[in-house]
Structure formats: structure tokens, C-alpha cells
């Protein structure tokens, strides 16, 4: 049997409006003292009522339009009923049979080919987030109980449900990266999977390529990074394929990715699945959106990654590879453009960002937005190279120091005295000295050994501790040897 992997995703995206979905509490809950970012409404206290924050609609429509969805003029809120301590009303206000956005799609690059793969978006609905349970460590006085923090309650979420269109875990990962990039460009979410502002569940099953028969699916939860999505789905696909080969039956169940053990484990079976008893939310009237609002949002839609890439190709004349990388996240694109507005050698700039900057950022495991080197700082450095104050090679050292210390290029150069020697007489003197002291190499060169020239130049650089302008040394040395 030739197996095909079939994956569909459900992605929750926190919408970063100022206020929560149904009350005036802030959405900025991370790091706050537990249960201080709450009010009677998001705590679900008896008698409180939800009132929809219109900004949530705007953000969700933005997302719907960006994912090519049909925005429904009328949608409805439903209650999803279940008991859990992090859910203070014992129901979540969500959408059910009439979601806000339906029938969209996103194109992702196909592996190793120039073609694209189109991933269908079944629906995007909006709902409220729940609180968080905190289980104290065994050593704590409170180890016998669980604590609840309701600060996250009522944060608006958009749930994006895809068609089962992914044929590999890698495609799912690529889609999520692209989705993160889109929500960042839309300004609706930072797309941080580690901090949970973007969360992903997956349905996965195996299809018999010959008969087209679809196997039993499992749902995989608790994948808290792009990498773990890939790893979890790889594991789960292999597990299912092996079971099928061994003639075992796959059970429909919800499984959890165990990061420590690097495997998926059973969370709950089909019998334990909830009956959510969805019914229309009587506290909220149907959500009506007029075409004027949709037009308005469409008109004001920010530039999306695909368009930005096109623009990078056209305006900056960058190679496709560079444009791809530079527009793969909002912050990287922003960094490039801010620098490019003051520095016109587009490709050199691109090399520095993709090369030196990303290397330092990856080494430090940080983000480009937290980079100690601002786009202006980088431009200052590059201009010093162009002026000849330092060489390109020196610039790399200076860059490294800028990144580690946060100091500006000019300051480092001054402090360490690493300016280039621009006094030509001084350099000519040194070149003469090297020629005199290395007659053998001079002879070799004259006999036609090009390598000998490199050695001689290297000697000059060594004398000057790298502060000589290599171009000048090269041309002068060559002239003097002829």
C-alpha cells in the first residue's frame, strides 16, 4: 500500500485588540499578577452580560479578507457548553453554524518546486479565550491544589479551520509560518506559538493512494512551536502507517504531543468526547456587517507578505531568494525597509541582514525586533565602509561588537582605534618594507606565482593589524612589483 498523509489544521489566533472581546479589560495579560486583569463580565459573575467589542470584528474581517474568505453579512454567536475550571461561565461564547468568514484559501510554496499549493480555509470564526490553570510544583505548599488565573479570559480569538489539504507535516509547518507572517503583517497578532498567541491543533489520517480510502483520523494537541508541529505530525504519521502495516486498527481519539518524550500520547477517546450542546447565544444579537464596513476594511488592508515580496523584487531588484527571506517575517521586512530608506546598495544591505544579523540573532536565540543593532546603526556602519574608514572585513568584527555591546559603530571604532590607515605615504612605506624583507616571495611572484602576492599583501595587513585598505594595498603592491 502506498500511503498518503492527510492533515487538516485548526489554528487559534489571539486578536490583539486593545480591549477584550466582551468587556473593557486589557488584552495585555502576559506577566500580570493573576486575576488582576479581570472584571465581572470576563469573570462571568452572575448578572453580568457580554457586549461585543466591534474592533474584534474589524480584526477578524481583516484576517478573513487576507485569507481570501467570504465575509458573511450575518453571522451568529453560539454557546459551547462544558465544565472546566478555567472557563468561568462554563460555556465559551463561540460561533457554530454561521461563522464570520468561510471558504478561503492560502497558497504555500511547494517543496523543491516552483509551483504553489493551495490550502483551503473552511472557516474562520471568532470566540473568547479561557483562563489558565496553574498546577503548583510538588515542593510548594499549594501542591495539593490547582490555581486558576482568569487574566486571559475573554481575549478575542479567531479560529482558522483548514480543509484537510496538507500532504505532509512540512507543508503544515510552512503554512503556519506563512500564517504567522500574514497575521503579523495584518497587525492582528504577533503569531507567537511559544507564548500561545497562536495555537495549533491538527487532524491527521492516512489515505490509501490506490483505493483513495481515508483512514481513521486522530487529533493532535499541545504543539507549542513550529518545530513541534512538524515533529508531532511526523511521529503521528509514522505511528499510523506502522499500525496499518501491522494490521492494527487506529482508534479515533485526541492525542497530546509530549515534548519531553518526543511522542504523541492518548489524551481522551471518542467516548469521552464532549457533547457541547451548542445553542444560539441569547445575550448577543446576530452579528450584522454592512458592505460599507467590509469595503472600508478591504481598502485599508495593509500590504501582505506576497505583495511585499513582489515589491522587494521590483523596487529593490533583489534576487528571489533574498526577497523570500527578507519578507518571511514582518519584522525582518520592516528592518530591511527602514535601512533601505537610508542606504541604496540593496543587495549589500540584504547580504548583511541575511548574513551577519541573522547569524547573531540565531546565536543569541533572540528576535530581530529585539536586535541591539537598529536599521540606522547598520546603515551607519555600512557608510563607514563605503567611505573607507574601515574595511569590509573590519566591519564584520565591528558589527559583532555592536551586537554584543549595543554600542554604535563610530564609538567602537574610536574606542578600539580600528580605523583604516588612509595615509598613503605611510602605507607605501610599509609596502616597501615588506618587499624588502621578503625577496623570495617577490621572486616567486615575478615568476608567475599569484599566491605569493596574497602572502605579501597579508604581511602588510598583519603589520597594520588589518587597518590597511586592502584594495589600495593590492593595487599599490602590484604596481611596485612591476
Amino acid at each position, binding site marked *: 500500500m502506498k500511503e498518503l498523509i492527510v492533515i487538516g489544521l485548526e489554528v487559534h489566533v489571539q486578536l490583539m485588540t486593545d480591549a477584550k472581546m466582551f468587556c473593557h479589560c486589557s488584552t495585555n495579560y502576559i506577566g500580570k499578577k493573576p486575576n488582576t486583569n479581570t472584571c465581572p463580565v470576563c469573570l462571568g459573575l452572575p*448578572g453580568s452580560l457580554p457586549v461585543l467589542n466591534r474592533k474584534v470584528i474589524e480584526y477578524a474581517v481583516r484576517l478573513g479578507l487576507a485569507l481570501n474568505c467570504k465575509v458573511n453579512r450575518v453571522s451568529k454567536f453560539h454557546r459551547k457548553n462544558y465544565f472546566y475550571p478555567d472557563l468561568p461561565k462554563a460555556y465559551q461564547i463561540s460561533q457554530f453554524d454561521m461563522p464570520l468568514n468561510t471558504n478561503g484559501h492560502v497558497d504555500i510554496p511547494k517543496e523543491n518546486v516552483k509551483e504553489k499549493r493551495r490550502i483551503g480555509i473552511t472557516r474562520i470564526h471568532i470566540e473568547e479565550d479561557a483562563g489558565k490553570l496553574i498546577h503548583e510544583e510538588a515542593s510548594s505548599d499549594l501542591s495539593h491544589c490547582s490555581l486558576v488565573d482568569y487574566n486571559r479570559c475573554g481575549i478575542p480569538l479567531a479560529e482558522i479551520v483548514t480543509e484537510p489539504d496538507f500532504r505532509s507535516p512540512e507543508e503544515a509547518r510552512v503554512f503556519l509560518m506563512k500564517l504567522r507572517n500574514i497575521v503579523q503583517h495584518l497587525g492582528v497578532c504577533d503569531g507567537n506559538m511559544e507564548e500561545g498567541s497562536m495555537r495549533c491543533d491538527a487532524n491527521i489520517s492516512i489515505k490509501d493512494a490506490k483505493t483513495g480510502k481515508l483512514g481513521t483520523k486522530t487529533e493532535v494537541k499541545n504543539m507549542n512551536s513550529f518545530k513541534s508541529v512538524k515533529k508531532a505530525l511526523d511521529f503521528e504519521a509514522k505511528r499510523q502507517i506502522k499500525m496499518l502495516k501491522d494490521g492494527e486498527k487506529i482508534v479515533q481519539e485526541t492525542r497530546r504531543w509530549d515534548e519531553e518524550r518526543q511522542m504523541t500520547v492518548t489524551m481522551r477517546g471518542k467516548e469521552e468526547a464532549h457533547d457541547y450542546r451548542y445553542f444560539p447565544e441569547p445575550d448577543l444579537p446576530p452579528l450584522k456587517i454592512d458592505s460599507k464596513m467590509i469595503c472600508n476594511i478591504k481598502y485599508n488592508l495593509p500590504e501582505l507578505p506576497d505583495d511585499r515580496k513582489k515589491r522587494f523584487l521590483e523596487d529593490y531588484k533583489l534576487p528571489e531568494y533574498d526577497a523570500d527571506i527578507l519578507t518571511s517575517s514582518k519584522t525582518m521586512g520592516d528592518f530591511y525597509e527602514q535601512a533601505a530608506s537610508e542606504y541604496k546598495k540593496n543587495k549589500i544591505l540584504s547580504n548583511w541582514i541575511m548574513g551577519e544579523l541573522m547569524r547573531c540573532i540565531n546565536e543569541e536565540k533572540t528576535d530581530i525586533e529585539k536586535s541591539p543593532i537598529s536599521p540606522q546603526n547598520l546603515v551607519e556602519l555600512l557608510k563607514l565602509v563605503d567611505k573607507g574608514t574601515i574595511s569590509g572585513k573590519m566591519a564584520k568584527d565591528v558589527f559583532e561588537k555592536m551586537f554584543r555591546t549595543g554600542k554604535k559603530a563610530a564609538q567602537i571604532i574610536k574606542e578600539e582605534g580600528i580605523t583604516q590607515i588612509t595615509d598613503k605615504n605611510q602605507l607605501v612605506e610599509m609596502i616597501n618594507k615588506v618587499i624588502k624583507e621578503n625577496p623570495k616571495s617577490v621572486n616567486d611572484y615575478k615568476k608567475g606565482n599569484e599566491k605569493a602576492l596574497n602572502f605579501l599583501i597579508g604581511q602588510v595587513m598583519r603589520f597594520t593589524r588589518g587597518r590597511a585598505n586592502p584594495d589600495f594595498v593590492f593595487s599599490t603592491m602590484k604596481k611596485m612589483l612591476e
Partner: protein
Amino acid sequence: MFNQLTAGDIVSLIKKREISACEVTNDIFKQIDRVENNVKAFLYINRENAIEQAKSIDDKIRRGEEIPILAGVALTVKDILAVRGMETTCGSKILKGFVPPYSATVVRALREAGAIIIGKANMDEFAMGSSTENSAFYATCNPWDTERVPGGSSGGSAAAVAADETHIALGTDTGGSIRQPASFCGIVGLKPTYGRVSRYGLIAYASSLDQIGPMTKDVKDAAIMMNIISGQDKKDATSANLKVPDYLNACREGLKGLKIGIPREYFIEGLDLEVKKTIEQSLKIYEKLGAEISEVSLPHTEYSLPAYYLIATAEASSNLARYDGVQYGYRAKVDGDISSLYQKTRSEGFGNEVKRRIMLGTYALSSGYYDDYYLKAQKVRTLIREDFNNVFEKCDVLITPTAPTPAFKLSEKINDPLTMYLSDIYTIPINLAGIPAISINCGYSRTNLPIGMQIIGKSFDEETIIRVAYNFEQYSDIRKQKSPINIFVAKENVE
């Protein structure tokens, strides 16, 4: 005795500086001390704060500041409404000790208008019941006959008004919970159109049916309260963005040419003959006042009760799920896991009627049953609404009995839920349709029990039902009769 006066009278006397808010409040508490042991209308009495509030109102008057429109009027609040800093139990053990950090929008509005909160009124647990016997704490007695129920679920509010322990009260009405106790206690009770009054701070039983409304000694007081509590509230997305008229204006017009419809489906088996006769006599008065009366038909009436008990319980099963012992209120002592905490807390915290309705509603929403029960009930609801729309093309108001019988005896129906449910048969369709209705006293049984008449109006046309009720009240002197609670208490004291 200032406790016997209407809010309208109190305000005009205070404005004329003939009496002080303190005098009025003292009289209220004197009456409470006199009769409350027999009536048991209150779950909480706010004595110290009320007296403080009265003093500050008197200070304001003395300083010549503007006198608010309900200055010095005693207000009793059904315990289903949140009052900041005051225990709010909803008549349930499960909310024992819950003190809301906020007040219901209506409570705030009335307080700002100068009303003095006297206390929280007893009620059927979570407003589920028609006799106030489902209170987790104690039953309230009817001031007209303390062996009888005051009706429910706003029985405490109705009894407090009828016993002159308060001038005005707030009730809530999901299937008749303002009108039926108003009828049983001989007072005025108005259920506004759904969306007319903000529900913020009303502890939900059935969110698509619940409305807050006034319970008063006369129609004018109901109009005054409506003026204060009506209107859109940014905290309630279902409150209507409509202009609110001055309801007191409705008390200035006559009835000439008014078209009254009498729905034939309401005069059927089960209707007490005395009640029927009293309503018929009232209709004669309306004819004298210049109204035209005709019979109309609301063909889907018989499906109201089943539709109501599916929709209301479905919503209740969800609304009451939050009482789980985690955040506030009662928590059972358990050693087990979270589900045993839920189960034990809810088993011990809720009373039988509440459990019955939660189970019913959970069932109606369950997968596989939703279409047959909840969805079908919603379709019936649409038909009932259309029934009313049709008859309101031909008439301005409908008149029916409020309840099929006068007040029944305590314990008479408590073990027979289905019979109990029937006492709301005339009020339930109105909630399903979302339209307004008022109950006023229109006569007495031979045993001297008040009989209520229900006047039903078009959506958002509270003005007309107030006008129709007011004209009747002015014509007859039925209202002037006081409940015999004082005589009863005096007699008991002698014995």
C-alpha cells in the same frame, strides 16, 4: 402611616416638605417589625444603610439642593438583582455568601433617583417557581391570607408591597413571575417588552425571556418606575435602541375607541369561575369607558407551555452551569477530583425544582435531541409571536385573566410540578412573544382574595397598557382596599 402611601404621594409630600425621608423610612421599618415575621417577604433587610440614605436625602432637602424624583421612596429589590455590597443569593443555597461588586443597571438608576433600598426580597430559587416555596430559605406568605402563597417567583416583592413593607419593588418575569404574584397579592405588576429594560445585573434564568419590571401599589407608580428604568444600556446588547416616552403621559388620556381583544383560548377549562366572572365584569367597565370589545383567537396558545419549558430550561441549563463551586458561592467539601467537586457542590447547592429544570434543559440541547426539542420549540415560539402580531392588527390590547385561580394554599401544589406550571399558563405566551403586559387587581373572590387582570400590549407599546390599566383603576375603587395583614397580626398578638 407613610408606609401605606404610593411613591407618587410620598414624593409630592417630600417635595412640599410636609414629611421627611427619615419619617417615611421609620414608618417602613415599623411596619416591617410589625408584620415581617408573618409575611417573610425579605431575605435581607438593609436597615442601617437605608436610614443613613434617608438622612442624607433630608440633608440635601435642607440645603435646598434639587430633590430627586423618587426621594425617600422605599424600594425592595428581588434577590435576583445584583446590588453592590449586598448579599445576592437568588433564593439559592449555592449563592449563599455571594456579594456582587456591582449593581444592576436598574438598581443604580433607581438609587440615583433617590429611592431607598429597604432590602432584598425572597423568591423561588433562580426564579423557578410560581409560589416562592422554592426559596432555599423559607416560603413567603400572602398578606391577604397567610396560609396562602404570594405567587412567584417574585413573591417576596409582591408580598412586601401588599403588606406595606415597601412602597415599590423590582421583580423579574420570565414566564409570569411579576404578573402572577402581583395578581395573587392584589398589586400592580408590569412586564416590559423584551429589550425595553436593561438586564445587566439580573442573574439569568432564561436570558431570551427574562425582563425586569415594576411591582407597585398603583399604575402611576409603575409608570414612574418605568420612566426611570427603561432605555438602552451599553452593558446589555439586547436592550433596544428606542426612544423612551414619558409613561406618566399615558395616565392622562381616556379610552374612547380603544379596541380590546379577548383571546378565546384563554377562557377554557381550568379557569376558576370566580376569576372568569370578575374579568367579565371588568370588561363591562371598559365598555362603559368607551372601549370596543371583540373576541380574537391565538391558535397556538396550547403549545406555549411545552415550548416555554424547553426554551427556558435549555437556557437555564447553560446559565446555571457557572455555579460549580470554583469561583464563588457554595462549595461542597470533597477529597476527590474536580468532577466530584462539581457534582457534590451542585447536588447540595441546588434545590429540586432547579435540578429538574437543569436536567430537562440539558436533555433538550443534547446532540440528537436538539432538533426535536429546542429547535422545534423555537419554531413554536415564532408561531406564537405571529399569533400576537395578527391579532394586534385588529386590536390595541388584549385582556385575559393573569392566572387561572386566586392564590392557592401553601404546600397545595409544591409536590405536583405540572399543576404548578399551569398557574403560569396565561402569562407564559407573553414572554415567548417578548411583548409587554401588566397585571392589575380587578376584584376579589368570596374569600377576599385579589383577582388579577392581565392587559397585553404591542411590542414596545407599554404606554397603551399603562393607559388601559390606569383608566380602570381610576374608575373602580378596587385598589383602595388594603390587605388585612395588619388586622391579622393584631389579632394574633391579642391571642
